[in-house]
Protein backbone atom coordinates (compact mmCIF):
# COMPACT_ATOMS: atom_id res chain seq x y z
CA UNK A 1 0.00 0.00 0.00
CA UNK A 2 2.81 2.33 1.00
CA UNK A 3 4.77 1.48 -2.12
CA UNK A 4 1.67 2.10 -4.29
CA UNK A 5 1.22 5.53 -2.70
CA UNK A 6 4.89 6.22 -3.24
CA UNK A 7 4.59 5.26 -6.92
CA UNK A 8 1.54 7.44 -7.43
CA UNK A 9 3.16 10.37 -5.71
CA UNK A 10 6.29 10.00 -7.83
CA UNK A 11 4.23 10.19 -11.00
CA UNK A 12 2.40 13.28 -9.77
CA UNK A 13 5.66 14.81 -8.60
CA UNK A 14 7.32 14.18 -11.96
CA UNK A 15 4.35 15.69 -13.74
CA UNK A 16 4.64 18.75 -11.52
CA UNK A 17 8.38 18.85 -12.13
CA UNK A 18 7.88 18.76 -15.89
CA UNK A 19 5.66 21.80 -15.51
CA UNK A 20 8.48 23.70 -13.85
CA UNK A 21 7.92 23.01 -10.13
CA UNK A 22 11.47 22.93 -8.77
CA UNK A 23 10.51 21.69 -5.33
CA UNK A 24 8.72 18.70 -6.89
CA UNK A 25 11.71 18.11 -9.14
CA UNK A 26 14.05 18.12 -6.14
CA UNK A 27 11.80 15.57 -4.43
CA UNK A 28 11.67 13.41 -7.56
CA UNK A 29 15.46 13.38 -7.83
CA UNK A 30 15.89 12.56 -4.14
CA UNK A 31 13.42 9.69 -4.25
CA UNK A 32 14.88 8.45 -7.54
CA UNK A 33 18.38 8.50 -6.04
CA UNK A 34 17.13 6.41 -3.11
CA UNK A 35 15.44 3.88 -5.41
CA UNK A 36 18.39 3.73 -7.80
CA UNK A 37 20.84 3.30 -4.91
CA UNK A 38 18.86 0.32 -3.59
CA UNK A 39 18.71 -1.20 -7.08
CA UNK A 40 22.43 -0.72 -7.77
CA UNK A 41 23.79 -1.70 -4.36
CA UNK A 42 22.26 -5.17 -4.81
CA UNK A 43 24.42 -5.61 -7.88
CA UNK A 44 27.56 -3.56 -7.16
CA UNK A 45 29.49 -4.18 -3.94
CA UNK A 46 31.66 -1.07 -3.90
CA UNK A 47 29.70 1.84 -2.33
CA UNK A 48 31.80 4.45 -4.15
CA UNK A 49 31.10 2.90 -7.56
CA UNK A 50 27.47 2.50 -6.60
CA UNK A 51 27.23 6.20 -5.75
CA UNK A 52 28.95 7.14 -9.03
CA UNK A 53 26.29 5.21 -10.94
CA UNK A 54 23.50 6.83 -8.89
CA UNK A 55 24.86 10.21 -9.96
CA UNK A 56 24.98 9.11 -13.59
CA UNK A 57 21.36 7.95 -13.27
CA UNK A 58 20.35 11.36 -11.91
CA UNK A 59 21.99 13.11 -14.84
CA UNK A 60 20.25 10.65 -17.18
CA UNK A 61 16.88 11.44 -15.56
CA UNK A 62 17.57 15.10 -16.11
CA UNK A 63 18.44 14.62 -19.77
CA UNK A 64 15.60 12.18 -20.52
CA UNK A 65 12.87 13.75 -18.38
CA UNK A 66 10.92 14.90 -21.45
CA UNK A 67 10.39 11.27 -22.52
CA UNK A 68 8.36 10.49 -19.41
CA UNK A 69 4.56 10.79 -19.52
CA UNK A 70 2.67 10.71 -16.25
CA UNK A 71 0.07 8.30 -17.63
CA UNK A 72 2.74 5.59 -17.46
CA UNK A 73 4.25 4.33 -14.16
CA UNK A 74 7.42 6.17 -13.14
CA UNK A 75 9.41 3.28 -11.68
CA UNK A 76 9.83 1.22 -14.90
CA UNK A 77 11.06 4.40 -16.59
CA UNK A 78 13.52 5.04 -13.77
CA UNK A 79 14.73 1.44 -13.60
CA UNK A 80 15.21 1.29 -17.37
CA UNK A 81 17.58 4.24 -17.08
CA UNK A 82 19.23 2.74 -13.99
CA UNK A 83 19.79 -0.63 -15.65
CA UNK A 84 21.17 1.13 -18.72
CA UNK A 85 23.66 3.14 -16.66
CA UNK A 86 24.60 0.05 -14.65
CA UNK A 87 25.29 -1.90 -17.86
CA UNK A 88 27.31 1.03 -19.15
CA UNK A 89 29.42 1.02 -15.99
CA UNK A 90 29.97 -2.77 -16.11
CA UNK A 91 30.97 -2.54 -19.78
CA UNK A 92 33.55 0.13 -18.91
CA UNK A 93 34.86 -2.03 -16.06
CA UNK A 94 35.30 -5.08 -18.28
CA UNK A 95 37.10 -3.03 -20.90
CA UNK A 96 39.38 -1.51 -18.25
CA UNK A 97 40.16 -4.87 -16.64
CA UNK A 98 40.96 -6.28 -20.09
CA UNK A 99 43.43 -3.48 -20.69
CA UNK A 100 44.97 -3.93 -17.23
CA UNK A 101 45.30 -7.62 -17.91
CA UNK A 102 47.10 -6.90 -21.18
CA UNK A 103 49.53 -4.65 -19.29
CA UNK A 104 50.13 -7.36 -16.70
CA UNK A 105 50.82 -9.84 -19.49
CA UNK A 106 53.52 -7.54 -20.89
CA UNK A 107 55.26 -7.44 -17.49
CA UNK A 108 54.78 -11.19 -16.98
CA UNK A 109 56.36 -11.86 -20.39
CA UNK A 110 59.31 -9.69 -19.45
CA UNK A 111 59.76 -11.58 -16.17
CA UNK A 112 59.70 -14.91 -17.99
CA UNK A 113 62.60 -14.01 -20.27
CA UNK A 114 66.29 -14.87 -19.67
CA UNK A 115 68.23 -13.38 -16.73
CA UNK A 116 70.54 -11.22 -18.88
CA UNK A 117 67.63 -9.94 -20.86
CA UNK A 118 65.77 -9.55 -17.57
CA UNK A 119 68.57 -7.36 -16.16
CA UNK A 120 68.44 -5.08 -19.17
CA UNK A 121 64.68 -4.93 -18.96
CA UNK A 122 64.95 -4.29 -15.22
CA UNK A 123 67.07 -1.22 -15.92
CA UNK A 124 64.59 -0.07 -18.52
CA UNK A 125 61.75 -0.65 -16.08
CA UNK A 126 63.53 1.42 -13.42
CA UNK A 127 64.02 4.22 -15.96
CA UNK A 128 60.39 4.01 -17.02
CA UNK A 129 59.21 4.06 -13.42
CA UNK A 130 61.34 7.15 -12.82
CA UNK A 131 59.37 8.93 -15.51
CA UNK A 132 56.11 8.37 -13.66
CA UNK A 133 54.93 10.89 -11.10
CA UNK A 134 55.63 10.05 -7.42
CA UNK A 135 51.98 9.29 -6.82
CA UNK A 136 51.66 7.07 -9.90
CA UNK A 137 54.84 5.20 -8.95
CA UNK A 138 53.63 4.65 -5.40
CA UNK A 139 50.24 3.38 -6.54
CA UNK A 140 51.80 1.07 -9.13
CA UNK A 141 54.37 -0.28 -6.68
CA UNK A 142 51.72 -1.01 -4.08
CA UNK A 143 49.31 -2.61 -6.52
CA UNK A 144 51.63 -4.51 -8.83
CA UNK A 145 54.75 -5.22 -6.76
CA UNK A 146 53.60 -5.33 -3.14
CA UNK A 147 50.36 -7.04 -4.18
CA UNK A 148 47.75 -4.83 -2.54
CA UNK A 149 44.28 -4.79 -4.06
CA UNK A 150 42.94 -1.60 -5.67
CA UNK A 151 40.62 -1.09 -2.70
CA UNK A 152 43.47 -1.43 -0.18
CA UNK A 153 45.62 1.00 -2.16
CA UNK A 154 42.68 3.40 -2.29
CA UNK A 155 42.32 3.27 1.49
CA UNK A 156 46.06 3.77 2.05
CA UNK A 157 46.29 6.66 -0.40
CA UNK A 158 42.99 8.22 0.63
CA UNK A 159 41.59 7.97 -2.89
CA UNK A 160 38.57 6.35 -4.50
CA UNK A 161 38.99 2.85 -5.89
CA UNK A 162 38.02 4.05 -9.35
CA UNK A 163 40.74 6.72 -9.22
CA UNK A 164 43.30 4.08 -8.23
CA UNK A 165 42.25 1.84 -11.09
CA UNK A 166 42.50 4.73 -13.53
CA UNK A 167 45.97 5.65 -12.19
CA UNK A 168 47.15 2.02 -12.53
CA UNK A 169 45.76 1.80 -16.03
CA UNK A 170 47.45 5.03 -17.11
CA UNK A 171 50.78 4.06 -15.56
CA UNK A 172 50.69 0.65 -17.23
CA UNK A 173 49.87 2.28 -20.53
CA UNK A 174 52.79 4.69 -20.08
CA UNK A 175 55.15 1.82 -19.24
CA UNK A 176 53.92 -0.21 -22.18
CA UNK A 177 54.50 2.72 -24.53
CA UNK A 178 57.98 3.24 -23.11
CA UNK A 179 58.88 -0.40 -23.76
CA UNK A 180 57.38 -0.37 -27.21
CA UNK A 181 59.36 2.77 -28.10
CA UNK A 182 62.61 1.27 -26.81
CA UNK A 183 62.04 -1.81 -28.99
Amino acid at each position, binding site marked *: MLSRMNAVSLEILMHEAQNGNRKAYHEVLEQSARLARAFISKRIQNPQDSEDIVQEVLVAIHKARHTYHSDRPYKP*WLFALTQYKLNDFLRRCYRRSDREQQGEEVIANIADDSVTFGDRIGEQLDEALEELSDKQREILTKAKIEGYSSREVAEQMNMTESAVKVAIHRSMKQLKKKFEDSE
Partner: protein
Amino acid sequence: MNTDELIDSLTEQPASAKKTPKPMMALFTGTLSITVYILLFLIIIGPREDLASRMTDPLFTAEILTSILCIAICVVSISMHGYPDLSVKRWVKYLPYATFAAFALVLVVELLTQPTGNTDYTYGMQCAMEMCLFGLIPPVLFSLILMHGIFIEARHASLTTAILAGVTSYLVLRLLEPVDNMLHYLYWHIIPLVLVIGVTTLLSNLYHKRRKI
Protein backbone atom coordinates in the same frame (compact mmCIF):
# COMPACT_ATOMS: atom_id res chain seq x y z
CA MET B 1 30.51 16.64 -6.05
CA ASN B 2 28.35 14.44 -3.83
CA THR B 3 24.85 13.27 -4.74
CA ASP B 4 23.01 15.91 -2.71
CA GLU B 5 25.02 18.69 -4.36
CA LEU B 6 24.29 17.16 -7.76
CA ILE B 7 20.55 17.10 -7.00
CA ASP B 8 20.71 20.76 -5.95
CA SER B 9 22.59 21.66 -9.09
CA LEU B 10 20.15 19.77 -11.37
CA THR B 11 17.19 21.36 -9.60
CA GLU B 12 18.58 24.82 -10.30
CA GLN B 13 18.46 24.13 -14.03
CA PRO B 14 15.06 24.63 -15.69
CA ALA B 15 12.96 21.56 -14.94
CA SER B 16 10.32 22.10 -17.60
CA ALA B 17 11.14 20.56 -20.96
CA LYS B 18 9.41 20.03 -24.27
CA LYS B 19 7.88 16.59 -24.00
CA THR B 20 8.16 13.97 -26.71
CA PRO B 21 4.79 13.07 -28.23
CA LYS B 22 3.03 10.23 -26.44
CA PRO B 23 3.96 6.75 -27.73
CA MET B 24 0.51 6.20 -29.25
CA MET B 25 0.80 9.52 -31.04
CA ALA B 26 4.23 8.56 -32.39
CA LEU B 27 2.82 5.20 -33.46
CA PHE B 28 -0.15 6.81 -35.18
CA THR B 29 2.05 9.35 -37.00
CA GLY B 30 4.52 6.63 -37.98
CA THR B 31 1.84 4.29 -39.31
CA LEU B 32 0.15 7.09 -41.22
CA SER B 33 3.44 8.28 -42.75
CA ILE B 34 4.50 4.83 -43.95
CA THR B 35 1.02 4.05 -45.30
CA VAL B 36 0.87 7.34 -47.18
CA TYR B 37 4.42 6.78 -48.44
CA ILE B 38 3.58 3.37 -49.91
CA LEU B 39 0.20 4.49 -51.24
CA LEU B 40 1.77 7.50 -52.95
CA PHE B 41 3.87 5.22 -55.13
CA LEU B 42 0.87 3.06 -55.96
CA ILE B 43 -1.21 6.12 -56.87
CA ILE B 44 1.46 8.00 -58.83
CA ILE B 45 3.12 5.11 -60.65
CA GLY B 46 0.27 2.60 -60.39
CA PRO B 47 0.41 -1.00 -59.17
CA ARG B 48 1.54 -3.77 -61.48
CA GLU B 49 -1.20 -4.78 -63.89
CA ASP B 50 -1.22 -8.45 -62.90
CA LEU B 51 -1.44 -7.76 -59.17
CA ALA B 52 -4.91 -9.25 -58.79
CA SER B 53 -3.99 -12.47 -60.59
CA ARG B 54 -0.65 -12.73 -58.75
CA MET B 55 -2.46 -12.54 -55.44
CA THR B 56 -3.92 -15.97 -56.21
CA ASP B 57 -0.41 -17.41 -55.87
CA PRO B 58 -0.06 -18.42 -52.19
CA LEU B 59 3.69 -17.72 -52.10
CA PHE B 60 3.32 -14.26 -53.60
CA THR B 61 0.49 -13.50 -51.16
CA ALA B 62 2.59 -14.82 -48.27
CA GLU B 63 5.48 -12.62 -49.39
CA ILE B 64 3.31 -9.50 -49.50
CA LEU B 65 1.60 -10.30 -46.20
CA THR B 66 4.81 -11.07 -44.32
CA SER B 67 6.42 -7.90 -45.66
CA ILE B 68 3.40 -5.84 -44.56
CA LEU B 69 3.48 -7.56 -41.16
CA CYS B 70 7.22 -6.91 -40.87
CA ILE B 71 6.74 -3.23 -41.73
CA ALA B 72 3.87 -2.91 -39.23
CA ILE B 73 5.84 -4.55 -36.41
CA CYS B 74 8.91 -2.41 -37.20
CA VAL B 75 6.78 0.75 -37.13
CA VAL B 76 5.36 -0.22 -33.71
CA SER B 77 8.80 -1.13 -32.41
CA ILE B 78 10.56 2.03 -33.63
CA SER B 79 7.76 4.18 -32.23
CA MET B 80 8.45 2.66 -28.78
CA HIS B 81 12.23 2.94 -29.02
CA GLY B 82 12.35 6.66 -28.21
CA TYR B 83 11.04 6.01 -24.68
CA PRO B 84 13.43 4.34 -22.21
CA ASP B 85 10.79 2.34 -20.31
CA LEU B 86 9.16 0.98 -23.48
CA SER B 87 12.34 0.28 -25.42
CA VAL B 88 13.49 -2.32 -22.88
CA LYS B 89 10.43 -4.52 -23.43
CA ARG B 90 11.43 -7.81 -25.03
CA TRP B 91 8.82 -7.77 -27.76
CA VAL B 92 9.84 -4.25 -28.80
CA LYS B 93 13.43 -5.43 -29.18
CA TYR B 94 12.99 -8.86 -30.74
CA LEU B 95 9.64 -9.10 -32.53
CA PRO B 96 10.86 -7.20 -35.64
CA TYR B 97 13.60 -9.83 -36.11
CA ALA B 98 11.07 -12.66 -35.90
CA THR B 99 8.82 -11.11 -38.55
CA PHE B 100 11.82 -10.33 -40.74
CA ALA B 101 12.89 -13.96 -40.42
CA ALA B 102 9.41 -15.04 -41.54
CA PHE B 103 9.64 -12.69 -44.53
CA ALA B 104 13.13 -13.97 -45.38
CA LEU B 105 11.91 -17.56 -45.13
CA VAL B 106 9.15 -16.89 -47.67
CA LEU B 107 11.74 -15.32 -49.99
CA VAL B 108 14.00 -18.35 -49.69
CA VAL B 109 11.10 -20.72 -50.44
CA GLU B 110 10.21 -18.59 -53.45
CA LEU B 111 13.79 -18.57 -54.70
CA LEU B 112 13.93 -22.35 -54.44
CA THR B 113 10.55 -23.12 -55.98
CA GLN B 114 9.68 -20.36 -58.44
CA PRO B 115 10.91 -20.36 -62.06
CA THR B 116 14.03 -18.31 -62.66
CA GLY B 117 14.63 -18.01 -66.43
CA ASN B 118 17.00 -15.39 -67.83
CA THR B 119 17.83 -12.40 -65.70
CA ASP B 120 16.32 -9.22 -67.05
CA TYR B 121 19.41 -7.02 -66.97
CA THR B 122 17.72 -4.10 -68.80
CA TYR B 123 16.09 -2.82 -65.65
CA GLY B 124 18.53 -4.40 -63.23
CA MET B 125 20.57 -1.37 -62.22
CA GLN B 126 17.45 0.79 -62.20
CA CYS B 127 15.79 -1.63 -59.76
CA ALA B 128 18.83 -1.64 -57.48
CA MET B 129 18.93 2.17 -57.45
CA GLU B 130 15.21 2.38 -56.75
CA MET B 131 15.61 -0.08 -53.87
CA CYS B 132 18.22 2.23 -52.36
CA LEU B 133 16.23 5.43 -53.01
CA PHE B 134 12.91 4.08 -51.72
CA GLY B 135 14.65 2.98 -48.54
CA LEU B 136 15.89 6.47 -47.72
CA ILE B 137 12.60 8.03 -46.68
CA PRO B 138 11.33 5.74 -43.84
CA PRO B 139 14.38 6.29 -41.55
CA VAL B 140 14.17 10.04 -42.20
CA LEU B 141 10.46 10.03 -41.33
CA PHE B 142 11.07 8.25 -38.04
CA SER B 143 14.05 10.38 -37.10
CA LEU B 144 11.70 13.38 -37.47
CA ILE B 145 8.85 11.76 -35.52
CA LEU B 146 11.17 10.73 -32.65
CA MET B 147 13.36 13.82 -32.91
CA HIS B 148 13.35 14.32 -29.13
CA GLY B 149 13.45 10.64 -28.17
CA ILE B 150 16.15 9.06 -26.05
CA PHE B 151 17.49 5.75 -27.35
CA ILE B 152 18.94 3.45 -24.72
CA GLU B 153 18.68 0.43 -27.02
CA ALA B 154 20.50 2.07 -29.91
CA ARG B 155 21.54 -1.14 -31.67
CA HIS B 156 18.05 -2.62 -31.73
CA ALA B 157 16.58 0.73 -32.81
CA SER B 158 19.09 0.97 -35.67
CA LEU B 159 18.56 -2.57 -36.88
CA THR B 160 14.77 -2.22 -36.73
CA THR B 161 14.95 1.05 -38.68
CA ALA B 162 17.14 -0.65 -41.26
CA ILE B 163 14.75 -3.59 -41.62
CA LEU B 164 11.87 -1.15 -42.05
CA ALA B 165 13.78 0.75 -44.74
CA GLY B 166 14.77 -2.39 -46.63
CA VAL B 167 11.43 -4.18 -46.49
CA THR B 168 9.44 -1.04 -47.36
CA SER B 169 11.49 -0.41 -50.49
CA TYR B 170 11.25 -4.11 -51.39
CA LEU B 171 7.46 -4.12 -50.98
CA VAL B 172 7.01 -0.93 -52.99
CA LEU B 173 9.01 -2.31 -55.87
CA ARG B 174 7.28 -5.70 -55.68
CA LEU B 175 3.89 -4.03 -55.98
CA LEU B 176 4.99 -1.85 -58.89
CA GLU B 177 7.22 -3.99 -61.07
CA PRO B 178 5.55 -6.70 -63.19
CA VAL B 179 8.55 -9.02 -63.09
CA ASP B 180 8.50 -12.40 -61.39
CA ASN B 181 11.86 -13.77 -62.39
CA MET B 182 13.33 -14.82 -59.06
CA LEU B 183 16.91 -14.57 -60.33
CA HIS B 184 16.21 -10.93 -61.18
CA TYR B 185 14.83 -10.50 -57.69
CA LEU B 186 17.85 -12.12 -56.15
CA TYR B 187 20.39 -9.95 -57.98
CA TRP B 188 18.59 -6.65 -58.25
CA HIS B 189 16.21 -6.62 -55.30
CA ILE B 190 17.37 -8.94 -52.54
CA ILE B 191 21.10 -8.12 -52.67
CA PRO B 192 20.33 -4.35 -52.70
CA LEU B 193 17.87 -5.07 -49.84
CA VAL B 194 20.74 -6.47 -47.77
CA LEU B 195 22.86 -3.49 -48.80
CA VAL B 196 20.13 -1.02 -47.78
CA ILE B 197 19.79 -2.79 -44.41
CA GLY B 198 23.56 -2.75 -43.85
CA VAL B 199 24.10 0.90 -44.76
CA THR B 200 20.98 2.06 -42.90
CA THR B 201 22.08 0.12 -39.80
CA LEU B 202 25.42 1.93 -39.80
CA LEU B 203 23.94 5.39 -40.41
CA SER B 204 21.08 4.82 -38.02
CA ASN B 205 23.45 3.59 -35.34
CA LEU B 206 25.45 6.80 -35.64
CA TYR B 207 22.25 8.81 -35.28
CA HIS B 208 20.91 6.79 -32.35
CA LYS B 209 24.22 6.88 -30.51
CA ARG B 210 24.04 10.66 -30.65
CA ARG B 211 20.61 10.47 -29.03
CA LYS B 212 21.88 8.30 -26.17
CA ILE B 213 22.30 9.73 -22.68
